[in-house]
């Protein structure tokens, strides 16, 4: 049973600028839920608020599905955020808060790296891995925390098609294993390939939410239709820029 995330009237206004303007949504417990929308819609900020990296000015994020135990969340960013150390040392960072015995930590790291196809690269400097390998390492590191909820912020945005396919395969595998995945993506083809549900954000609000397939093929709101057609009339540009 996966985790259900309920977002209630989330508002975020850093420095008086509205980024999220009352987001309400229920993210179901199964499969992958994608969050899409134009630049500046607030997708990444919303993901950080769900993770707890940012605090909303008002509203709430509620989790159900883990009983009394707090929900374990893990985050994979567009940039993998690797330190100047070996691949194994980077993965092991995820285990620091658990204070595991050294041998047990090494065993888990070895397993996690094997799971993402990096078994032979454990001793290599992480920053010397290819972009795709670095992102798989970031994924392995996130999975070492044994998350109930995996948050992905455009994890394949800077990857080539082959590396993207590898990452997508792993993400689909994680979701199939029962971990709830929320994926922020600009890539609508990727959303179509991976997501069960889709939340479309525009101007800090939910423009439309529903099954990814239905929303992508038959959007109901003008905002969703315009976004999918590549038109974004709600964005106003300075006259000089037009």
């Amino acid at each position, binding site marked *: 049973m996966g985790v259900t995330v309920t977002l209630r009237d989330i508002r975020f206004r850093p420095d008086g600028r509205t980024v999220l303007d009352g987001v309400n949504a229920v993210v179901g417990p199964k499969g992958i839920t994608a969050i899409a929308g134009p630049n500046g819609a607030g997708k990444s900020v919303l993901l*950080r608020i769900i*993770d707890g*990296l940012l605090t909303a000015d008002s509203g709430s994020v509620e989790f159900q599905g883990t009983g009394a135990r707090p929900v374990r*969340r*893990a*985050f994979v*960013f567009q940039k*993998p*955020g690797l*330190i*100047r*150390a070996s691949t194994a040392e980077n993965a092991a*960072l*995820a285990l*620091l*808060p658990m204070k595991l015995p050294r041998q047990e930590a090494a065993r888990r790291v070895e397993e996690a790296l094997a799971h993402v196809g990096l078994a032979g690269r454990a001793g290599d*400097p992480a*920053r*010397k891995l290819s972009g795709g390998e670095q992102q798989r390492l*970031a994924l392995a*590191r996130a999975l070492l*925390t044994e998350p109930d909820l995996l948050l992905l912020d455009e994890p394949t945005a800077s990857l080539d098609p082959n590396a993207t396919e590898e990452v997508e395969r792993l993400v689909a595998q994680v979701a199939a294993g029962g971990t709830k995945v929320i994926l922020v993506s600009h890539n609508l083809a990727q959303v179509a390939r991976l997501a069960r549900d889709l939340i479309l954000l525009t101007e800090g609000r939910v423009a439309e939410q529903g099954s990814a397939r239905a929303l992508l093929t038959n959007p109901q709101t003008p905002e969703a239709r315009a976004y999918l057609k590549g038109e974004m009339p709600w964005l106003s540009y300075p006259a000089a820029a037009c």
Partner: protein
Amino acid sequence: MLASFAAAVSLIGTFDPEVIRILLLSLAVSGSAVLIGCVIGLPLGALVAVARFPGRQAVTVLLNAFMGLPAVVVGLIVYLLLSRSGPLGGLGLLFTPTAMVIAQTMLVTPLIAALTRQVIEDSDRELGESLRSLRLSRWQQARTLLFDARFSLVVAVLAAFGRAVSEVGAVLLVGGNIAGHTRTVTTAISLETQKGDLPLALALGILLIAVVIAVNAATTGVRAFSMRRYG
């Protein structure tokens, strides 16, 4: 002038025992001070960089201001603390190498901490969000960022060593420039120049510069190699 230079080279070439003793004491005192300064300054700077607490800005300003502490003022403070009538006078440390280490540690610790804070703050901008998402404690974040930035922090350590080994005010006040006991390269150069013994002063000066260049070259080489290896 040329005769003094030739005599200085001869002193170095013959491994004059006094020159070697003075040089070794300088390296021991400054090396110890930098080592202790690293033990205190590196974690302090890293914690100030990653922690959020009231007065953090004030601490940052103080650290930056203390980078430029006048050596002679630090010497005076340590002198007052260690003098017979001072609060730590009973320890009998005044005019000993230990007093010199204490004074130089006070001198270099803020420098190391302030430079570390800057380096770690930059590193935190790049990696901080990832580390926080892994639920690392502030201390674990600081330790991880210190490890990540270790090659850049070499510069902070070098700057601290340069400051310690070249200062004269603090070691002169708390060491007393006692021959064979607390005479360092800088205090000896000062004294010998006043006495007119230019060959010894020049020999010590040449050796000091050579040591500083050698230490810098070695660490720069190690840093470049490591940066190439780890990216």
